[in-house]
């Protein structure tokens, strides 16, 4: 117990670093850290060259859940785990979900091509998963149908998506004018694993019958589960090496693009925006898809008592069911869309004006303080998720900056985060903690994230 309790914070820290497919309100637009280019390829940069330290520049993860916390299930309170699970399930809805994201940056570097253009590129591996709570199917499995006569168990609540992939990216950030910077990043995805189920429909219902005691209905059921990379040659792929290999230019390739901009509306007012991961992956190798579709009414097996026409009732039932509710698997190729993200911000700078050294041997003026708002959205299978952030930035010196955020999202109404960026010599170091209020009891938090990174930057 002691070890577990001590290890859990570490687990969260290790698994809660930078997350590119999640909201990184602290990192977005902050202190010209090179990684902000992955959140907005149109972010301004003032350095000649940067290189992230492999592994140290970008190992990250994030866990989030709505409707319940780890404490709800595993706190020591002498209540049975069965009761606690039941209580959690009772208060969850089909809109509640669990998400998980982890990422490791293998390579991240960039250089100034000329006065106007900054080129950045890299490669990272990512696992991204979200599962919505299939409340009705879970109730059917856990409690059965006996206590739920006339209830429509809705199988459309089966909704999840999990990806493991590698992303090779190349971007250009162009300073169009003193007041406007635009950038775009081309991405090539290589999927190692995809499992998803969406756009399902149908219900299962048990009602009182007339000819027999009950009637069971499968009504317009249409459920599919698509997978790629999970099964090869009719065997499950269970070697990490295979998955890792497939993240780099494997057989299931996709493309995507990030675009973004920074616009100075005035000397003190800055407006930014970006669209990330506008792309898809074509899964055409090692795919295995499961499906079931149709409607069926089952009232029991009706005996005919006809000695002249002996009937194999069970076989007839199986054949009739298969005919009316075809089910099975196939190896059809399919397309999965990446979870596209939107970011936008409005920042007002104020206070003492300072200057900093730039790549072109000039000095650029900056204000020591800034406040602003950011809006983030990610397209998820059920609905878009939104987060609204207010922030305050403070530059203590040219090379030491801090940012504090307050975020409203699906997971919390009191998410306060803080971060800093420091440059010591050529080394840039930054650290950011999200959801500080819950940090004293991480297990009671609906989401936790932390971002750390080290870069080498040449001004």
């Amino acid at each position, binding site marked *: *117990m002691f070890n*577990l*309790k001590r290890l859990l*914070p*570490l687990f*969260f*820290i290790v698994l809660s670093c930078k997350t590119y497919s999640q909201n990184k309100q602290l990192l977005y637009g902050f202190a010209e850290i090179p990684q902000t280019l992955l959140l907005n390829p149109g972010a301004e940069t003032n350095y000649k060259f940067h290189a992230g330290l492999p592994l140290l520049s970008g190992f990250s993860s994030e866990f989030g859940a709505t409707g319940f916390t780890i*404490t709800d299930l*595993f*706190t020591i*309170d002498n209540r*049975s*785990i*069965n009761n*606690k*699970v039941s209580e959690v399930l009772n208060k969850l809805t089909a809109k509640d979900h669990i998400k998980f994201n982890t990422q490791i940056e293998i390579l991240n570097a960039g250089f100034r091509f000329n006065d106007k253009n900054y080129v950045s590129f890299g490669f990272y591996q990512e696992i991204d998963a979200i599962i919505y709570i299939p409340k009705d199917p879970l109730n*059917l*499995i*856990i*409690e*059965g*149908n*006996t206590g739920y*006569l006339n209830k429509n168990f809705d199988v459309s609540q089966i909704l999840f998506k999990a990806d493991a992939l590698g992303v090779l990216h190349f971007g250009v950030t162009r300073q169009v004018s003193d007041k406007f910077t635009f950038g775009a990043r081309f991405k090539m995805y290589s999927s190692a694993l995809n499992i998803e189920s969406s756009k399902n429909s149908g219900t299962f219902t*048990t009602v009182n*019958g007339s*000819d*027999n*005691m*009950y*009637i*069971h209905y499968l009504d317009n059921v249409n459920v599919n589960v698509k997978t790629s990379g999970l099964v090869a040659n009719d065997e499950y792929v269970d070697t990490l090496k295979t998955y890792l290999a497939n993240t780099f230019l494997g057989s299931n390739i996709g493309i995507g693009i990030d675009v973004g901009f920074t616009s100075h509306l005035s000397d003190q007012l800055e407006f930014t925006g970006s669209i990330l991961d506008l792309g898809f992956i074509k899964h055409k190798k090692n795919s295995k898809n499961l499906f079931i579709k149709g409607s069926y009414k*089952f*009232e*029991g*097996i*009706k*005996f*005919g*008592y*006809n*000695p*002249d026409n002996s009937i*194999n*009732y*069970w*076989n007839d039932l199986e054949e009739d069911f298969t005919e009316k509710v075809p089910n099975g698997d196939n190896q059809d190729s399919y397309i999965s869309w990446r979870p596209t993200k939107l970011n936008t911000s409005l920042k007002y700078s104020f206070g003492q004006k300072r200057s900093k050294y730039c790549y072109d041997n000039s000095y650029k003026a900056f204000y020591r303080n800034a406040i602003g708002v950011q809006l983030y959205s990610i397209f998820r299978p059920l609905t878009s998720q939104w987060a609204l952030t207010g922030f305050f930035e403070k530059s203590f010196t040219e090379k030491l900056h801090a940012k504090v955020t307050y975020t409203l999202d699906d997971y919390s109404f009191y998410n306060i985060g803080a971060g800093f960026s420091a440059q*010591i010599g050529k*080394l840039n*170091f930054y*650290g950011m903690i999200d959801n500080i209020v819950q*940090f*004293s*009891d*991480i*297990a*009671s938090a609906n989401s936790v994230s*932390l971002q*750390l990174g*080290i870069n080498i930057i040449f001004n």
Partner: protein
Amino acid sequence: MLINKLSLILFCFLVITSCVKNLDFSQIEEYSISPEYTVSLTYFTILPFQFFNKAGVQEAEKSDITDFRVFENSNVRDKLVKLHFYVEIKNEFDRDLTLQISFLDDNMNVTHRFNDLKVIANNLNYQFDETIDVSANPNIKSTTKVRVVVIDNSAKPLNDSAKTEFEFKSSVNIYMNV
């Protein structure tokens, strides 16, 4: 070196200040689910003419049988705890009828048999239920067939054109522990 020290300090700070209060993940080992499923079983309606064979001779019993391969599913077989059968019968016949309900394996050996159900004449609301505790009757899991025999021991002649009905309905509650 300075960066490494800063990283170490930050990690230590987070480990020290972050906390997980009073959690015990081993509770999950005690978690179990006990679903209860209600499923319709066999049903039928017999009319007097069905007691007559091709030659027009009245027979004393009628028998029918079906495969019942639910227990071939290992998930069901291994997690099965209890079965609770319900039967409802409406006997409009002018005579007592007896039902024999037997559960059989592939070799037609009886794995379980209910006591004979004796339904008196014109009983329109006969009900029967029986619980089978699987741990005490493990043979039930070998069941692959169900046979229902309707017996007329009265030896009284039937009017084969009569519309009186013998109606049989059944269901089972399946209790599992996973």
